[in-house]
């Protein structure tokens, strides 16, 4: 019941394991590329601007190595989510200072109501579980991550 949103929005083709990015900026650009490559972005520059602006106001690095960069933008029609893992971790300017190992980019349409924060809450609540978080970081394929998060 409590993974309803994850179930409807997670797609394996928007998930990458062990990305090569080494800093926050690169990581976010990688996530945006994942969405853009799938042909889901109307205006990539606009999406990039929104996400980085949100990041400038306050870092979206949560505790325990999870980061949730996000933005509301007209360049998407539906909620889109891209997930990337970085087992070595990268600095995301988190409040607890821990390097981010799981990165979740959420984009949803601006000017329209619908789940956005609710979606991020669902994934972040799930990732509070130490065992699950470790298994996601260690996952070797996109399908494995999706099945871990929607079980």
């Amino acid at each position, binding site marked *: *019941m*409590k993974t309803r949103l994850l179930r409807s929005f997670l797609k394996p083709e928007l998930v990458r394991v062990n990305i090569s990015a080494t800093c926050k900026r690169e990581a976010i650009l990688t996530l945006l590329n994942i969405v853009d490559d799938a042909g889901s972005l109307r205006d990539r520059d606009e999406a990039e601007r929104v996400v980085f*602006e*949100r990041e400038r*106001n*306050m870092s979206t690095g949560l505790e325990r190595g999870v980061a949730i960069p996000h933005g509301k933008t007209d360049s998407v029609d539906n909620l889109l989510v891209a997930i990337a893992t970085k087992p070595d971790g990268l600095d995301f300017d988190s409040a607890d200072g821990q390097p981010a190992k799981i990165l979740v980019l959420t984009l949803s349409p601006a000017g329209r*109501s*619908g*789940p*956005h*924060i*609710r979606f*991020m*809450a*669902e994934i*972040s*609540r799930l990732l*509070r579980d130490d065992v699950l978080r470790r298994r996601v970081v260690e996952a070797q394929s996109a399908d494995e991550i999706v099945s871990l998060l929607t079980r």
Partner: protein
Amino acid sequence: MDYVRRQVPDKHGMYNGHVRPRSWSILAVVMVMIVLVPSAGAAQLGAGASGVSERMTHLMLQLAVILCVAKTAGYASERFLRIPAVLGELASGVIIGPYALGSVIGLFEHPELTEFPLSPELYGIATLASIVLLYLAGLETDLGMFLRYSVAGSLVGAGGVILSFVLGDLAAVWTGLANSVVSPAALFLGTISTATSVGITARILSERNKLDSPEGVTVLAGAVIDDVLGIVILAAVIGMARVMERGGNVEWLPILAVLGKALGFWVICTAVGLLIARRLGKILETFRSRQTMASISLGLALLLAGLSEKAGLAMIIGAYIMGLSFSRVDCAHVLRRHLEPVYHTLVSVFFCVMGMMVDVNALQSILLVGIVFSLIAIVAKVLGCAVPAMFAGFNLLGASRIGFGMLPRGEVALIVAGIGLSTGLITSDIFGVAIMMTLVTTGVAPLVMVRLYDDREGLRQRWAAARREAGRRRSICLTLPNVEIAEFLLSNVLEMFEAEECYVHQVFPGETLFQVRKDDISITLRREGATITLSCGDIDCEFARLVLLEALASLVKVFEGVREFEQTTDLRSQLQLG
């Protein structure tokens, strides 16, 4: 019916319709209106009320008085007497109605001169109000929550409806208001007794932070079943009454045919409605303007209302079905939000007009009957709901909380009574009894409830332990540098909850306590001075925390913006130097 009035502050921190008025000056304006407007109206009447423009002028003057008087009375009863606004609005209607002050000061013609106490124009507006009301009641239905608490809710709702209908119908015969249990009068009184109006209960529950208590959710889920069963019974009763009106005596074949037709219409329309609602919702969403979406949806509700009347049922049944169907679509909250101003205006007119139809001169003769009937209605609903609740894990205290929570009757009882009176199926005596029952039950319920709802446990021990395990509540406390920033942040937070399609409800006008709901999400927000406290169940904590975080981020953005602005243009000197 469950339609909780919602208040959200706008950008200026004002509360829709509840800006604290200078009560005395408003009262003075109302008094002046009562005296001046009707005399103008009387002059119009004297000049010959048959012309369209004269009749419209008279209608506008009537509406002017009704709106000002009913709204003031409703506000005063809530604010000063601490009783539900509907009581004040109804009472104001009785006072300014054609049977009392109204005909004396020339606002209305004396009813003895006419067949029906109100002009068709005014009654038409009240009918429109009842359709909007039932449409919103349907739209507001929380089917998701109902399904989660469906067992206890169904038992409680069905128990209350069945016992109320049976006892109401029998009481009509016992008290001599009807001569047989299948006469239209008895059937109508039975139907009038069934419909719970849970809005008042919901308000008390949220004031005491008990909306998500086991008793609270059971009452809210029970109200869903109550609504549905009540509407089905109404459909059947109207059909039966019409058959008997024609035939004069009880013929079971046509009655069964009508019952079948009524149930058929209900089941088919609801099923089709729920099936195609999502598609209809998508079509509505292609209109970029939210106002347009809301108005068209109301148009569709009126359409189904008309069709259901054509099918031999009441118009409100169609309106309710359309609301129920749209309650599941994504844009439901947009529709609700944009129809709310219409609702708030019309509903007061509706209650006031219902009060106006009470024949005060006849009250004396029906007083005793009315009291007896009201007592029976109380016993029927409380027992009918409390006894099933005892089987659903509640102890005596919990069960009585549920029984009294389901007690208030309201708009639907009034609408049904109005339909009966306007179609001539019930007399004005019975109408008076119905109004009295509504007033008594709505008045008694809060008095008892405030005593019952405290911190004692309402569940039996075994259930209570299981619940304690499942639902601990947590608080998040945030202290901001000053009240202004806290207010700004709060309005941001509420906006964000709404953008997430949550339903935000201000618990009491003028106080900064809010309830946020969506499916099984239940979060309470309070601002005291510069401190914002948010409390929620364990499971919603992450959502609440992220919303606060986002609101804080947007606050940072605002501060950044202001700083940039100061650097590039000197706004202050621009303004100060003109």
